[in-house]
């Protein structure tokens, strides 16, 4: 299978500041890749480089087998959807959809045909004669997607397309984008800071920080086997619990040195197990409590500090032998501050990171 997008040694400097450094990325034909990271991590910058909206300092970008490193954005065979919709306010919806095609001197009847098709797919036919100012946020973003659609390209680029919408609309359009991808089977690169969008949409997620890709993997792997402490803390809500401590006893035993210690037998080490200082990560949802704690390989007792009932479940802030621990309980269980409750977990679901390099052990 040929790569749809291939980025080789991409470097981007703004003056003396290095924004992206030696970045390599291959995206397969028809893949849905999400670039995920907090603001300033370089994800939008990378997308703009792919689109040709930023001139790169060094490296190469190939799209559909062509070297487009110094090609104009309009000639790269991409369509792009922006956070602020970026619709031309003085043109009708139809004019917005036609603008790029007119610039590319596409024949009139072909333009009409493509607009009709895109309007049908996105259900915006009744809006064609209106101006963007008269549309709701959701409708505007549909039109913006339509503008990418009519270009009849292999690659779609999304730059935080749902961030300006309210929660309900965001969920609706998320599903719609996923459906669109399944119908069209285009390559899609999607930038977001929202991990829910990333987890639900992506074939693969690239987690970025400081202009570098930290981990590039399918969502389940990112969730279950984060490569480093940053990725582990970034993915998951509420965030992963971290404890610092010492791994010894043939790397089978964890000790915080402050009164809490337990066996980590069953943890799958990425390489040969080594003893030494570590960060131990435990996802709140992997902690079992009450009667479900029975039978877990590791068991202990937690003192409840604070309770946040959310309806479906209850978030508990607790202390275990002086160590802060957050976990989730079933919303129907009664729990109060000051309670002592049994908890337990399976070391196979832990994450262990080297204390100094913060990479996965």
């Amino acid at each position, binding site marked *: 299978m040929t790569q749809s997008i291939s980025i080789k040694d991409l470097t981007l400097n703004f003056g003396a500041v290095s924004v992206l450094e030696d970045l390599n990325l291959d995206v397969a034909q028809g893949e849905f890749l999400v670039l995920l990271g907090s603001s300033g991590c370089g994800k939008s910058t990378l997308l703009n480089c792919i689109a040709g909206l930023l001139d790169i300092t060094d490296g190469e970008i190939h799209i559909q087998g062509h070297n487009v490193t110094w090609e104009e954005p309009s000639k790269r065979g991409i369509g792009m959807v922006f956070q602020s919709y970026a619709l031309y306010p003085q043109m009708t919806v139809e004019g917005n959809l036609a603008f*790029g095609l007119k610039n590319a001197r596409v024949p009139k009847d072909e333009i009409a045909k493509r607009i009709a098709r895109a309007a049908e797919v996105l259900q915006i036919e009744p809006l064609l004669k209106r101006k963007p100012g008269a549309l709701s946020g959701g409708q505007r973003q549909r039109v913006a997607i339509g*503008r990418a659609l009519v270009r009849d390209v292999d690659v779609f680029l999304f730059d935080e397309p749902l961030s300006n919408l309210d929660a309900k609309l965001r969920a609706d359009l998320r599903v719609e984008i996923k459906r669109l991808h399944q119908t069209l089977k285009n390559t899609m690169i999607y930038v977001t800071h929202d991990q829910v969008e990333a987890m639900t949409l992506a074939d693969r997620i690239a987690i970025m920080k400081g202009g570098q890709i930290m981990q590039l993997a399918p969502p389940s792997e990112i969730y279950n086997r984060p490569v480093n402490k940053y990725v582990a803390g970034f993915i998951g809500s509420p965030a992963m619990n971290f404890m610092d401590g010492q791994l010894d006893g043939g790397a089978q035993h964890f000790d915080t040195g402050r009164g809490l210690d337990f066996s980590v037998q069953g943890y799958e080490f990425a390489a040969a197990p080594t003893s030494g200082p570590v960060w131990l990560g435990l996802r709140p949802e992997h902690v079992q409590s009450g009667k479900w704690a029975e039978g877990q390989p590791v068991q202990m007792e937690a003192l409840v500090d604070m309770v946040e009932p959310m309806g479906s479940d209850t978030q508990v802030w607790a202390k275990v032998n002086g160590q802060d621990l957050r976990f989730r309980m079933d919303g129907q269980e009664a729990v109060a501050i000051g309670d002592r409750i049994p908890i337990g977990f399976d070391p196979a679901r832990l994450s262990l990171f080297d204390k100094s390099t913060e990479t996965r052990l």
Partner: protein
Amino acid sequence: MTAAEMNMKLAVTPRGAKPRSPFAPRNIMLYGTLIVFSIYYLLPLYVMIVTSLKDMAEIRVGNVFSPPVDITFQPWVKAWAEACTGINCDGLSRGFWNSVRILIPSLIISVSVAALTGYVLACWRFKGSEVFFGILLLGAFIPYQVLLYPLVIILRELGLFGSLWGLVLVHTIFAMPINVLLFRNYFVAIPEELFKAARVDGAGFWGIFFRIVIPMSLPIFVVSGIIQVTGIWNDFLFGVVYTRPENYPMTVQLNNIVNSVQGVKEYNVNMAATLLTGLVPLTVYFFSGKLFIRGIAAGAVKG
């Protein structure tokens, strides 16, 4: 404070304590003061109008404030068509048409150049563009007197000295700092993603300017146009320095008529001429309302 901030603030509703009964002593003082000041500001307009409607005999017996007894439009006719400037006696009409011939090309060229430059500075920055913009802004603070003679030389070298086109060029040059600033600030506020979208859609430098930016920016063209119309029409110094007497703009001709030492002073004709000269900017002012204020608030940065 930037012009944009000021524009926004002008749109906000008034502040301060809640209004009380209209006849509270506080309000009587407030409105009384405002009315007294209004009289000071309106008085010259009133004097101009009444004087221009009297004949000389009536002026000699009365004072400047007394309303006309016999309204006559003769001074207006004379001011327009017969008043003498010391060189010729065909009134202000010549100056009026000169001003129109100066205004129209100056307006079009200066606004176009400023809009294009503002567009470059807002959307297509290149290495060094901000430095040139800084130099341009500093230029707004250089007293005109410093540049008067160098411009004489430049115009002479270009073969434009004394011609209308020379004056058009001078107006375009001195209009640049403030108008470029105005356009740049307006264009900067257009979301960047719109430019990105247009580039993905295959529009280039000129395509984006004519098809996306200009259609979105009509208000700022109007504001800039207002600044230019009043500025160019009211100019005196450049008119005197860079044109020959047959091309003198209206302000110069007005000054020559009123302050000419020959003959008997005809105050009614003078006031009619003065009013005629002020009519164009006054019309622009009264019809443009808030946009004029936006323009000068923007110009406030210039000085």
